């Protein structure tokens, strides 16, 4: 159920400017926003920190994650590297359909 909640939050964040504003404001505003979702502590922290690597390992759909990264100001090459680093640090993707099939030192697209 928690993966579902994370993905539902990213769905709302990616398409709703008011959710984006509340997330960007941080502090209590962000805490209240995130408090409305049924995350466990690991997930809440990953969302709060914008930890792309952890979110990828937790199984967030790549299409949702790919849109989250630009909102955080993360460039494409850094987005790809953040996911590789996530797998190095936390191990293989645990859920979802976006499991990694290349090595953590591979740069298929050259970046």
């Amino acid at each position, binding site marked *: 159920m928690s993966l579902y909640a994370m*993905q*539902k939050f990213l769905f709302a964040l990616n398409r709703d400017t008011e959710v984006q504003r509340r997330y960007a404001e941080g502090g209590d505003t962000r805490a209240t926003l995130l408090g409305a979702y049924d995350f466990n502590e690991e997930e809440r922290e990953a969302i709060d920190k914008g930890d792309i690597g952890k979110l*990828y390992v937790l199984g967030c759909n*790549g299409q949702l994650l790919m*849109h989250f990264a*630009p909102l955080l100001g993360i460039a494409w090459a850094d987005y*790809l590297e953040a996911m590789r680093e996530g797998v190095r640090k936390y191990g293989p993707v645990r859920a979802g359909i976006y499991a*990694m099939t290349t090595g953590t030192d591979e740069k298929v697209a*050259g970046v």
Partner: protein
Amino acid sequence: MSLVFAGVCSHAPGITGRAHLADSAVKDEFHAQFHRFGEAMRAAKPDAVIVVAAEHFANFFMNNMPTYAIGMADSYEGPIEDPKWLGIEKTKVPGDAALSQRLIREVMQTVDVAYAEEWKFDHGIMVPLHFLTPKFDTRVIPVNINCQGPPLTPLHRAWAFGEALRRACDKAPERIALVGTGGISHWPATPDSGKVNAEWDAEFMRRWCANDREALLSQADYNDEATYREAGQGGFEIRTFLSVAAAARGKGHILHMKAIPIFAVTCTAATMSIE
């Protein structure tokens, strides 16, 4: 009038958003062919363009995921993505609610379809429109086949959906173009981004160009497990190509089919004759 143009193309966000990171000659060749695809479509003088896209959670989520959905509004907004990231400015795209309603009513004769009077376009529609209708001045009928959240529609149902779209177009007085966007093999939005399966792509497009229904719907070759293994999660989007083949009934002609890793996909543009 009926269907006056049919084709398929890629829609990966990198095509516009990361154009500056690609080898310029490779990028220019693809963009030229994509523009040529748009010119061919506009030469058919369509009154409206049906874009059968694989939507990426811009509108629909797993609390109520429609297998098939058709937009039914007089205008749409897009892109939902950051304009600088996608390389396409936010704009309002004209729709045609009345035409949509007529199409939906006819499609419903054989295929259950959801409709949406509110729809935000993501890169799945905005990237193709950037090349097809660069002034965003042609009426668009957005169509989505769920290719994101399994369970996914069986391939033969995507084919039947294309047949239903064709019947609906045949009953409309307007001149209608049909464009499918998605696939072919790719592993988008992951560390695997840039990986493709060129042999799988070539064989799929050979079957698509031949409009070989039996081969395209092969359960041995294109069941979800095999597609995921051979063509990645992006391969699920072949459903949009199948619908176009079913609607057009003709033969395909490839304008471009070459992997551009920084765009994360085998960059494809192909037209199909209408029979």
